[in-house]
């Protein structure tokens, strides 16, 4: 095996080892991780599973919960937006109520309904460990903005690609040629 191939193999092995460790840590954290303790007056993001497991600890705390909202509904008479997040794997249901919705100033009900992820700051009340009722004090919808930026980002990359006349086929050709040359040198 020549040296460039060994280098590439080492890079791939490093990456694979890193990802394996990360996934192992992720599984351990999700199942046995401790509840966050450093609040510092700022919201801390928790998973539905962690929120359920440490419901008593987290009640009244400022947390950010990443959820995919379902059953989004708006009650005009009370100016309250409500939605539900369900973690099907662990059987957890989280009902979130956002009072004074019309004053949020950022998003419409449709924005929230079409969001795949949603950060909710301020879990103020936890009913039971598996059925959580929370009051949101701040909501950030992500999906719409994120997809806009991804489409815009790819468009910008395409423009730059054209602008600099970068030809990836040439790069690949160089890589192949360099590899074959190094192989020849090794043989020699």
């Amino acid at each position, binding site marked *: 095996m020549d040296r460039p191939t060994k280098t590439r193999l080492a890079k791939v092995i490093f990456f694979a080892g890193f990802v394996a460790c*990360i996934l192992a840590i*992720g599984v351990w954290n999700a199942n046995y991780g401790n509840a966050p303790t450093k609040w*510092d007056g700022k919201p801390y993001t928790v998973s539905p599973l962690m929120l359920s497991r440490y419901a008593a600890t987290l009640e009244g705390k400022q947390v*950010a919960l990443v959820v995919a909202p379902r059953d989004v509904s708006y009650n005009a008479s009370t100016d309250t937006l409500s939605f539900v997040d369900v973690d099907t794997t662990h059987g957890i249901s989280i009902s979130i109520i956002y009072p004074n919705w019309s004053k949020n100033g950022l998003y419409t009900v449709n924005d929230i309904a079409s969001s795949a992820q949603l950060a909710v700051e301020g879990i103020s009340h936890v009913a039971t460990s598996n059925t959580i009722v929370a009051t949101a004090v701040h909501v950030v919808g992500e999906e719409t903005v994120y997809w806009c930026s991804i489409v*815009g980002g790819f468009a*910008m990359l395409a423009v730059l690609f054209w602008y*600099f*006349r970068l030809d990836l086929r040439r790069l690949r050709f160089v890589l192949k040629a360099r590899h074959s040359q190094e192989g020849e040198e090794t043989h020699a």
Partner: protein
Amino acid sequence: MPDWLAHLMLGFIIGTALRMPGKNRFFLLLGSIMPDLVRFFGIAFTYFNWSFGITYLSNPLNTSSHSVLGVLAYALLLSVFFPSTLGTASTTWNLGGARDKWRWLVDRPLFLLVFGGLLHLLLDSIMWPYAGGIDWLYPLSTAPFIWSFGLMWPGTFVVDWILFPFFLAAVIVELALWERRRSSGGKSFPQNPKWKSSKSIKDQGLIGS
């Protein structure tokens, strides 16, 4: 999560400031969105409502890609698919007297990908910690907010509007240089005059004769 536009604009501005050639700039820009590439898993899993994948796969991958060690790991993987050196360090890098000293480094896709990735982390750290914040030292340390400035909420275009004037200035600079080169050298696209005298790929021995 400043969006991709913000990350790419910052990369472009830095690339213009350092007078990076096109190839180098491409890798810098690729690096500047590299930590977010794994988010496609999260979006797909969320779309299919696969909670297991979100909890055990996409969340750990996303957290790890937004760390120094993760940036290095992902850059190592991506660099496998490209040449180890681009052969453009002697052309347009604006590194002053340090150019010769650092030529071996700034010419490498691996370095540019890591550089772009660190720019990504820096920009992400200005926001309120969304999805756990940016754990720069993950998995060595998971202390929350260690590098978060908490300046603004994600999910808005505030960062884009702040960066846009600088990006516009960078584009104007690039176009002005392009026009100057075109009028003096007759080239129809940005190209440093030194490229004419720089060695071709074949001369550098990258292609066997």
